[in-house]
């Protein structure tokens, strides 16, 4: 309520103080609740106009950061060209890079060149953790993480599209540069809204697949409007190829113990009985599970069947025979880097406690996760266990041995695991063990999958 003419940031909007309704302001502003206001993303455009309008700019709260790049790799020609194009475009716009072309490296150089507080927005938690580790290593400084379980804000911070909205609403003007990883996600309603709320004048979008015009219309946001246009596209033939390992798979079948078998058969009868009686697969096809969940809210038999299914999954995940096999494999491959994948957190923690090996779940902090993966790479930990499927685009650490406990994963996840877990280590062939329970639903699923060899990917 003072009479100084100033522009300030408020919850994703820019508000002008001290200017009345009768004075014309740039077109993007609207008179709302006694002030001129507009969406914060207009800041870049408005910034040069403010002096001429005699309005004090109180928006920026970002810092200058003294950054030293500890990543000594030489950039590729195309990476330098992309960065240069982005600079020329006023440091606003998107770079289209095929997978594996080093977009993180480009982002790191962009941050280094800008030398101001920066925010990286990633689509998944796995990618958030990966960005965190890479930024810490590249700059050897504290990096913040902002998502459900951890909210630590530093001049360099990584967040997810899901959590960015809250961070931006409160501290959007703490960042001068925002980098949107996998920016093809931006048109989605709530995620684009976040970009709308961001005052950062410098913006970089990164993706391998820029959405078509029609994918950015009809109630969905436009990347060009919120970030800027494509400033550079990296042609595919500029990149060198990389080979993935050849590996062999071994399927190991274990028997349930007697008590486990009894419990399994009882629950399976309940579950399968209901399934057959209602013929869910015929009526609902691949949405049978959702239908079962819907029914269980009011149909007692459906609820019994759903609970039976949950008990079956828990029992199979923690079957004692799987622990015994795991123990013997750890013994047999006692000098090899080993990755262990479980179906759920409970089993992951049980293995961690039983064998005293590090565990990564969605509850693991960014810092600890980074430590575990790096120590594992250095051989300080020989084995680690995780309940997360390490998803698309995330680096999986090198392993000679991968042990997948449980055949209940869907075919796609399973193949992803195969394709990404194993990297060529010299000439040595890697091995993937799949441990499943004999004469259970796990066996049926595993047989349905057709094993595919993934030879190499030219990029």
């Amino acid at each position: 309520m003072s009479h100084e003419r100033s522009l300030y940031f408020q919850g994703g909007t820019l508000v002008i103080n001290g200017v009345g309704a009768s004075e014309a302001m740039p077109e993007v502003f609207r008179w709302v609740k006694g002030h001129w206001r507009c969406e914060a993303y207009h800041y870049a455009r408005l910034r040069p106009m403010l002096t001429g309008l005699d309005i004090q700019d109180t928006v920026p709260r970002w810092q200058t950061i003294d950054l030293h790049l500890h990543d000594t790799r030489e950039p590729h020609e195309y990476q330098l060209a992309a960065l240069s194009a982005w600079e020329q475009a006023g440091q606003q716009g998107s770079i289209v890079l095929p997978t594996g072309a080093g977009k993180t490296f480009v982002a790191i150089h962009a941050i280094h060149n800008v030398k101001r507080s920066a925010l990286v927005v990633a689509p998944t938690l796995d990618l958030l953790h990966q960005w965190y580790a890479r930024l810490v290593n590249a700059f050897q400084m504290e990096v913040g993480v902002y998502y459900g379980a951890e909210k630590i804000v530093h001049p360099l911070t990584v967040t997810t599209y899901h959590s960015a909205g809250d961070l931006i609403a409160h501290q959007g003007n703490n960042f001068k540069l925002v980098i949107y990883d996998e920016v093809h996600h931006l048109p989605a309603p709530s995620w684009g809204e976040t970009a709308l709320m961001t005052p950062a004048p410098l913006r970089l979008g990164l993706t391998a697949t820029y959405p078509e015009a029609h994918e950015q219309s009809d109630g969905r946001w436009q990347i060009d409007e919120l970030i800027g246009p494509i400033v550079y596209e990296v042609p595919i033939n500029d990149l060198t190829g990389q080979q993935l390992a050849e590996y062999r798979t071994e399927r190991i079948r274990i028997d349930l113990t007697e008590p486990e078998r009894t419990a399994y058969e009882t629950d399976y009868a309940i579950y399968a009985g209901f399934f057959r009686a209602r013929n869910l697969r015929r009526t609902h096809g691949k949405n049978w599970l959702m239908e079962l969940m819907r029914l269980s809210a009011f149909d007692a038999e459906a609820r019994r069947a759903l609970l039976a299914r949950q008990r079956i999954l828990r029992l199979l995940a923690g079957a004692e025979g799987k622990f015994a096999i795991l123990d013997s494999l750890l013994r047999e491959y006692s000098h090899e880097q080993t990755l262990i994948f479980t179906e759920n957190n409970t089993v992951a923690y049980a293995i961690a406690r039983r064998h005293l090996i590090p565990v990564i779940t969605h509850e693991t902090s960014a810092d600890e996760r980074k430590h575990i993966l790096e120590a594992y790479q250095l051989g300080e930990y020989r084995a680690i266990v995780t309940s997360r499927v390490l998803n698309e685009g995330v680096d999986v650490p090198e392993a000679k041995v991968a042990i997948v406990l449980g055949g209940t994963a869907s075919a796609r996840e399973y193949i992803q695991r195969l394709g990404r877990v194993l990297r060529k280590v010299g000439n040595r062939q890697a091995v993937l063990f799949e441990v499943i329970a004999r004469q259970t639903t796990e066996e049926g699923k595993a047989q349905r999958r057709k094993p595919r060899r993934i030879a190499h990917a030219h990029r």
Partner: protein
Amino acid sequence: MLTADLIRPRLRVRGDTLHVELLSPENRHWQASATDLIDLFQKLSGHTSGEWETAVEQLEGERLDYVVLRGLAKVLSDGATWVTRSSPLPPADLRRLVFGRGPVLDEADLFHPQSRAMLLQDIAAELGTDIITLERSLFADLASESVLAEVGPAWTPESLITRYNLELTRGVLYWARLMEVEIYDGYQDFWRYLKLFKLMFEAKPYQGGYGVTLDGPISPFVSTTTRYGRQFAAFLPALLLGERWQMRATVKSPFSDDWLRYELNSTSPLTSHFKRSGEFDSRMEADFAAEFIEKFGEGRGQWQLSREDEVLLLEDTVMIPDFAFTHQKDGRRALLEIMGFWHPDYLRRKLAKVRAAGRSDLILLVYEGVNLTAEQLTDVPGEVLYFKNKPVLKDVMALVERIAK
């Protein structure tokens, strides 16, 4: 507050309105369920959050009303105090230490001579603790390992059910994009909580009270945003502090793309757990009111004194003067604000509001001790009266007589 999955199953759509299926506190079945959960919760004092979850699951069994049970359980859990067990080292550091020495196998052999028990025993000894403590501390920082330290309020089945109903009622607002209310009293609390939950408002006088629209900064630009749903939900108990009010919210249907109406008013049996602001903000106000009642109370004088019954709407904020004087016969009114606190920020904010209000029928009663000189108050449109120790009621009333409109 409840999570979305515990609220959605209790929602029903009728035409274009959304309704919540509340529990009846007199219902025997719910009373029994509430009693079971309260007893169970008390038994689990000193146990972990994971054990509580397992216990609730066991109580649920195959019951179809598990959504309600989980909701009641969440209310109990939210009202309690959970702590992380203390450990010889921070758990993350403990993990580094222990896992750095692993892996161990189920049985020792030539290449793994140390068994699990031996290794843990060694480490425990190094840290000056025992194996049991060591094992318990390894993952003490997990949410499921937090320990129930204080059970919280002394719940009765009725109070738990009533609180559950409140949580359901407010949770519907998670999906709201707009909230419109009419309020006729309790202005001080209403605006105080609005400010606390960072909601924006637009208000107009309405039938002796005020019509207020609530939303957030981005709403004018993205009219469909439900970004402020959590804040609306957090705010609702403040509305329940008033004696007379109505609310309409525009809420996204959980079952389709439609927008639905959600209504609530002061006839609702729900009660708020929010604190009301005190009877008087300061001793000065209390004394002033007491003296007025002593001299002019029981209709002896021409003027009636009321507290905070008028809201001065100032664009994006409000001012609610401490007192108002209303003439018994002709209805003329004057407003009174006591400036009794010395802090410069307080004075600056108050004065800014007074100036913005621009009311010539507002009297500023200024305590000499706050150090506000006459020069600082020249542009104040109303009247200013100074007092040394105690306001002189006679002088105040003379001024009221003069400036009331």
